[in-house]
């Protein structure tokens, strides 16, 4: 169940990466200078880090520590 949710979350982020709705516009600007195509993907990158923290917490491959 946990693994299925993890892959679902990864799939959702992959989908969110294809942000065609921001394709032809620079607006809205963040901080007055960052076009949406940049700040959206900067936020995406932070979301990826949060997802990784979740994956490490709940989906860490089991049994590998025995080799340490």
């Amino acid at each position, binding site marked *: 169940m946990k693994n299925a949710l993890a892959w679902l979350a990864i799939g959702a982020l992959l989908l969110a990466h294809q942000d065609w709705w921001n394709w*032809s516009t620079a607006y809205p600007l963040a901080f007055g*200078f960052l*076009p949406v195509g940049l700040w959206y993907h900067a936020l995406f990158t932070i979301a990826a880090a949060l997802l*990784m923290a979740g994956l490490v917490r709940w989906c*860490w491959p089991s049994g*590998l520590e025995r080799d340490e």
Partner: protein
Amino acid sequence: MIPALFVLAYLAIVLYIGIFAFRRSGGPAAEDFFLAGRSLGPWVFLLSLFGTHMTAFAILGSSGHAFNFGIVTYGLMASISALVVPVCLLFLGTRLWSVGKRFGLITPVQIFRDRWECGHIGTLIFFLQAALLVPYIIIGVMGGGTTLSVISGGFIPFWLGGLLVALVVMSYVFFGGMRGTAWVNTFQTVLFLGFGAIAVTLIGQGMGGFTSVTERLLNNPATASLLTREKFSLTAFLSYTFNPLSAIAFPHIAIFCLTARKVTQFKRTVIFYPICILLIWLPCVYLGVAANQATDIPAIEAKIEARAATGRPVPGDDVMLQLLNRYAPGWIAGLLGAGIMAAVMASDSQILALSTMFTEDIFAFYGGKARFGESAQIFTGRLFVILVTAFAYFTALNAKVAIFDLAVQYAFAGYAAMSPLFVAALCWRGSTKWGALAATLFISAATVALYFLPRGFTVAGFAPVVPMTIISAALVWGVSLLTPKPSAATIHRYFPPASV
């Protein structure tokens, strides 16, 4: 000239670190030279793995690409890598570490040979991996030559800059092996992350502030589209989703996964990897776009005019350095130039990886180690370091392709197509050597075909990496289903009953 002196001083420091690491090593054991004795701590593992992955491509190539194509560069390579690369490290890198540690294996080919009970098929995979890695090493030498040439205002020519970088990298890899390479990469990553923020601030101020830069870009019809992604198709953008799969198949990344002291050290790396990507790529891409407003720099103005006249992208690998030279004070430009040089010199781990692969997968496998001993094996590895560096240097002198194109065209497509081999070996009991052979032969043929096809070649709008990866995965899967499996004992070793 002051910035160039800083960069030269930096080169001397990394040389010292490499030699210092050599003195600390415990002896001539191959595992110590090639894997730092599998002893890297958590922060060194994170910073050096990231430093290994981020090359001239990330700094010079990304800003050059953004100069021509705009902000799309960040989504194309950075944000998607922030998702795909850590996922690969979490689910495949940890397994690589585990089998490497359990069975005393050093290279991916050793793992394939052991997992699929094959010999010469492994040799074929070695040749494919080695052939795909060489362009990436060439990128490093080209980046070094470009950096020193621009930062010295042309005083140090490209050929001499590339030669200096090649010699320094060769020396500390030669003496320090993996330990030296890891410590140098750690130092380099800290340096770049530290001074990168200063660079962005200074350049922004020099150009009149970021808000003003963006306004001017938006108000100019020739540059407004660079702040959107109109110059790129959605299918091309989707194609780039496949490129980061290459990370785990890059020999220098796969081998680096084996250097961690504990598997739990992957946790920090997996979580912080996206943040490191954000800190490096976002400024590089924005500054690459902003360079289109730096018409007070003659070299950049000439590029803009040439692009307007021909309607085609122009070489832009040096735009970040041009901005630095123009807007940062000399000594800061020197420190930042050294930081850029740090990223550029990531070719060290690639050279070491090739050397490791040659000595383990060819020299040792075909009896050299048994016949001549471990000292001869390490000597062979060092000799190989010299030969590879020399080859990369002389090829870089004649390379005409931009850094970004060189990486995308060959290295990323080929290695991404090899990623199904890693998934099959580490996660699927039913995979066979014949499936691996079919995929390897296909990728080899496709890469050769790519060389002869026109640049920008697509299949139904998708870049070659997409069909190459899908067909490779289908071949591994389909052929494995039809061919005999490795022995039950081997499958049991790799997939013990308690494993997921």
